[in-house]
């Protein structure tokens, strides 16, 4: 008799989340894991942001005021590493976890247990990375690109911890990507063809392929560093017959696809939000898919445009210049499609739409400065200046990060069941929008005037714009506390959200209740007509 009661009890457990901390430790639920990823990434966003504000505080005025050059180098390095691997990438994985199963009508991710592992590796990886600040010799100080021999012969002892941290986050991303691919290819609701998938699912599928192709190369390059440092090999040591330039080739073979890993899911998010608030179907769905795939392919054959000044033969420079310029074509297709979607639409400007429109404009500015950088003879002047800093921050902050914020505002009512505070949301948008432009636009000017990146002190002629830039950075940084407040407020309560939340929303995730029940689509949905926007 007892056994029967026990069984019944167990069965009952499956209907809702477990109680207490073990819910989060042992969870295999895609929504729980998505939430964990998103909070983790938000925490890392603040840690990386503190590093950034340390940098901008030091650069507020010429001369050394706040940190010594050694510490400054650690701040720039850790800012880059934490933002790329700790903030942007986990945020996208979190969104994928929450949304992909709901968008394709699947009950969960394909490999729920592995999903749990791939999240819980991350706190250890970043705990290890951040702990290097307290170690003798300090944290990594060789830039987020960790060029050899700066990261091998001249590196602080903490480099070994950095290497293991990279290995761990690589394993985490690879497991996450395998999960995404297997889920999308095997668990779509019956009747949903690949070309009926929402673009967020498409872009993530392609991103996941990029990840499993290049994260192992990153693991390889840090393994070579480890061997050079501890086991006497000479992959990158010229004295032993190796070549430091080889490091740059292998690194950027990973690094350039990595750049697109951080932007393709953003394209998917924007392609979901703009049609909703323009109340039109997405213009050119098919071309969006092909453009994404082309960008992914091109990302593998342009890596040397990061290293035009290392002494590549002319033919090589020309090839990499033209190949890089070709990327502007599929990217242009995407921008055109977004604009065409808005064209003659009945637009309203809720917070997600504001972030999405800002994304289109500001990402395009970043794209244009990218084309400028691809021009070899001009690049010799721009290389390693603040112009480059301005370029990649324009594609990453108002690009990737604005898209993540847009996504959070857009799907938050679905996640929490409550509407966020629209006035506060718009305030957050405008503060961020002004902050970001005040921070990064002047960096174009000081870069063209010749200010090198990664320096704690600078010549007097750069003083004014640096001060402006620092003011913008503090405005942007502190506005994010408002973002945190808005999210907490929305979780705690607010106007009840309807199933559909947005008048113009399309897709399977809007057919289920708000907040999304703990288990969704245990029986697959049938109507695929509106599966994508």
């Amino acid at each position: 008799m007892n056994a029967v009661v026990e069984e019944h009890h167990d069965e009952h457990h499956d209907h809702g989340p477990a109680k207490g901390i073990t819910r989060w430790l042992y969870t295999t639920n895609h929504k729980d894991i998505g939430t964990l990823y998103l909070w983790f990434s938000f925490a890392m966003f603040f840690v990386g942001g503190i590093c950034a504000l340390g940098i901008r505080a030091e650069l507020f005025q010429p001369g050394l005021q706040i940190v010594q050059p050694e510490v400054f180098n650690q701040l720039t390095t850790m800012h880059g590493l934490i933002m790329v691997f700790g903030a942007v990438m986990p945020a996208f994985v979190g969104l994928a976890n929450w949304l992909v199963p709901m968008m394709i009508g699947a009950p969960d991710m394909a490999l729920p247990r592995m999903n749990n592992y791939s999240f819980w590796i991350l706190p250890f990886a970043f705990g290890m990375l951040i702990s290097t600040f307290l170690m003798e010799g300090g944290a990594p100080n060789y830039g987020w690109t960790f060029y050899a021999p700066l990261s091998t012969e001249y590196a602080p002892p903490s480099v070994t911890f950095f290497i293991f941290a990279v290995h761990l986050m690589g394993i985490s991303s690879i497991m996450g990507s395998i999960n995404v691919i297997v889920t999308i290819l095997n668990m779509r609701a019956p009747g949903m063809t690949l070309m009926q998938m929402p673009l967020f699912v498409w872009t993530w599928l392609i991103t996941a392929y990029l990840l499993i192709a290049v994260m192992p190369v990153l693991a390889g390059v840090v393994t070579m560093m480890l061997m050079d440092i501890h086991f006497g090999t000479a992959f990158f040591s010229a004295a032993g017959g190796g070549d430091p330039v080889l490091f740059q080739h292998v690194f950027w073979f990973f690094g350039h696809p990595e750049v697109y890993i951080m932007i393709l899911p953003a394209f998917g998010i924007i392609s979901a939000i703009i049609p909703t608030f323009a109340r039109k179907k997405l213009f050119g769905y098919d071309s969006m898919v092909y453009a994404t795939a082309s960008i992914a392919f091109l990302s593998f054959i342009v890596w040397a445009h990061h290293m035009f000044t290392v002494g590549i033969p002319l033919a090589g420079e020309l090839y990499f210049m033209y190949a890089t310029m070709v990327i502007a074509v599929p990217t242009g297709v995407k921008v055109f499609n977004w604009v065409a979607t808005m064209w003659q639409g009945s637009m309203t400007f809720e917070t997600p739409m504001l972030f999405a429109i800002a994304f289109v404009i500001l990402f395009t500015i970043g794209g244009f400065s990218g084309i400028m950088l691809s021009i070899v003879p001009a690049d010799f002047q721009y290389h390693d200046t603040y112009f480059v800093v301005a370029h990649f921050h324009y594609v990453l902050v108002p690009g990737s990060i604005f898209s993540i914020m847009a996504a959070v505002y857009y799907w938050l009512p679905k996640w929490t069941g409550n509407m966020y505070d629209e006035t506060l949301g718009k305030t957050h948008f405008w503060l961020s929008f002004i902050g970001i432009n005040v921070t990064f636009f002047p960096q174009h000017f000081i870069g063209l005037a010749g200010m090198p990146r990664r320096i704690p002190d600078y010549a007097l002629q750069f003083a004014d714009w640096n001060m402006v830039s620092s003011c913008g950075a503090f405005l942007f940084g502190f506005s994010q506390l408002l973002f945190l407040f808005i999210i907490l407020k929305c979780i705690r309560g607010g106007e009840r959200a309807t199933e559909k939340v947005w008048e113009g929303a399309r897709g399977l995730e809007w057919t289920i209740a708000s907040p999304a029940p703990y288990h969704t689509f245990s029986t697959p949905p049938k109507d695929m007509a509106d599966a994508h926007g």
Partner: protein
Amino acid sequence: MLEAQGKKRGVFKLVSVVVGMFAFGFLLVPLYDIVCEVTGFNGKTGGAYQETGKEGVDESRLVTVQFLTNKNANMPWSFRPEVRSVHVVPGILNEANFIVRNETNVTMVGKAIPSVTPFKAADYLHKTECFCFESQKLEKGEELNMPLRFIVDRDIPADVNLLTLSYTLYDITSSVQLAIR
């Protein structure tokens, strides 16, 4: 359980891609060396050259070969060529000497790494004997005369009349000790 099978196959395929790409990362190392050797990118010169006696001499022109000596940041030795430059007839064997001296009070091991500019000339400089093929171990204060014997190929492009052979001397004492240990 068609879906479970599909998942298993998918995971297996993707894991093989991961393993393959990890290996590919390491494959890039020899690949890079081969590309550099074939094209002469980076000014890499080849290993010891065996004289065939059929090189052929081109008496009609002279090529200037400059010798540069550099020391890596922490290398305390002195290192200089005996002559700064020579004019050579393509196809004829030449000799040049480099003088190296350990200025410290300890025994050290050094190794010189060559590079040729312009890069496209790298393939046409054949070294039959070079101190850069091995490392040098010098006692404190010891001085060494290091020979280099080379032939400039007579097929060297007509527009290359000046080529620079540069050596950078590295302190490899610690890595040699590591290898012995």
